[in-house]
């Protein structure tokens, strides 16, 4: 767990953001150390996904600072809030992997092609090298035999596993997972979570937004509970998910969650 003595890999400090009049993030702070798996839970509209999207600057933010490995993410400087150049932003984003709820595979490229695109265009690998890396990762997610399939020929679970392979093949410092099983049929959720678990065992630093409470409890080092755009509770899974929590918002959320899922 991040402490003041070990600098955090991801350091989110007092980040705030509004969409017009609506404040979606209110001074959110969170540190994530290398190798941690941090899960963000919370009711919809609590800012979980927005926070995640700020980390690779798919969303800009109005105040505060986000640093990865000590480097400010979207702005040249948190004070002046001068946006980084397009080239700079692209280079920064290549250091964070992201897996999306709706997979967002490139439909015109094969499974291997999806993975190879970033490797060749961003990492400057030859297509033979990229192909080898793509095949390695497809093997890791159990899809070695689907390298030349187009996304439309894959099931949702298979598509999402390609999505994960595409993100990790870039060797990101941190992997962001945005409700990656929410669009899947229940029987396909397990195969995707198994891949995430094996990445966690390899020491991949991950921040994920999920509604899979059982998975969050078993796989995370810490759980963050967000409510109304702020961090309402944070700690080891056992503490945060404890039924006897004194945090009113959290208790309501968990009670509602248990009522609807069990």
């Amino acid at each position, binding site marked *: 767990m991040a402490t003041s003595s070990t600098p955090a890999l991801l350091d989110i400090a007092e980040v705030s953001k509004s969409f017009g009049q609506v404040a979606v993030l209110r001074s959110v702070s969170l540190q994530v150390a290398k190798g941690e798996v941090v899960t963000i839970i919370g009711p919809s509209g609590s800012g979980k996904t927005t926070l995640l999207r700020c980390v690779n600057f798919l969303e800009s933010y109005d105040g505060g600072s986000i640093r990865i490995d000590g480097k400010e993410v979207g702005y040249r400087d948190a004070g002046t809030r001068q946006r980084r150049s397009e080239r700079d932003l*692209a280079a920064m*984003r290549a250091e964070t992997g992201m897996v*999306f709820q*709706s997979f*967002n595979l*490139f439909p015109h490229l094969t499974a291997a092609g999806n993975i190879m*695109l970033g490797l060749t265009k961003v990492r400057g690998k030859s297509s033979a090298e990229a192909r080898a890396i793509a095949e390695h990762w497809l093997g890791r997610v159990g899809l070695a035999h689907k390298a030349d399939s*187009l*996304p439309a020929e894959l099931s949702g679970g298979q598509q999402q596993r390609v999505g994960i392979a*595409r993100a990790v093949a870039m060797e990101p410092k941190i992997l962001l997972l945005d409700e990656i099983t929410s669009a899947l049929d229940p029987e396909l959720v397990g195969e995707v979570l198994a891949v995430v678990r094996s990445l966690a065992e390899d020491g991949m630093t991950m921040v994920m937004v999920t509604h899979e409470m059982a998975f969050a409890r078993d796989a995370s080092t810490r759980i963050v509970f967000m409510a109304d755009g702020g961090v309402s509770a944070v700690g080891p899974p056992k503490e945060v998910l404890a039924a006897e929590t004194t945090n009113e918002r959290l208790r309501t959320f968990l009670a509602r969650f248990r009522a609807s899922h069990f």
Partner: protein
Amino acid sequence: MLSQILYALPFLAKGFAITLWVSLLVVVLSLIAGVLLGVGLVYGPAPLRWAVRIFSDTIRGIPILVLMFFVYYGLPAAGLHLQSFWAAVLALTLFKTAQVVEYVRGAVASIPKGQSEAAMAIGLTFRQRLTSVIFPQAFRRFLPPWINGVTDAVKGSALVSLLGITDLMQAINQVIGRTYEAMPLYILGALIYFSVNYALSYASRRLERRFAFIRD
């Protein structure tokens, strides 16, 4: 009758060549201008977007014939004298460009936002996102309306005869003027236009299949 038509064939062939030449110029020039302006309309800075929007809406709101007469008879008043051939090509190109702009805008806008986001997330720059992710997908959606537009351009090129250019249409009219064989010549003309456009439609169906993302 047949001998008269056979006698006129080389003259008709010359007209047909002009029709193809006008069509080719219009199609190629409007493709280049339309793609550039269309991309500008989607991704450009606000002043460029407004300019393209005004251009496209204005041009599409004017009949081609009016546009052609305006360029040929109107522009000289502003000091721009064009030969009838180039006036016709310019007018048809302007008209076609406005259509291509809309095809490009529609095709690019139809690509879900998640595609650019996924491309951003793996670290592609703006240019790389366009060339590797957005355009290859948009191209498929651009193709069918554009090919339709190409056949329109071939048909629409017949209007250049009204500026006295001897294209296929004008050649046919002149041969009819000499032979008074209106029916067979118009049928011949229709068949030629139809053959060109049928070939284009056929090619377009092949292309669409070629770029479908789901294999048969």
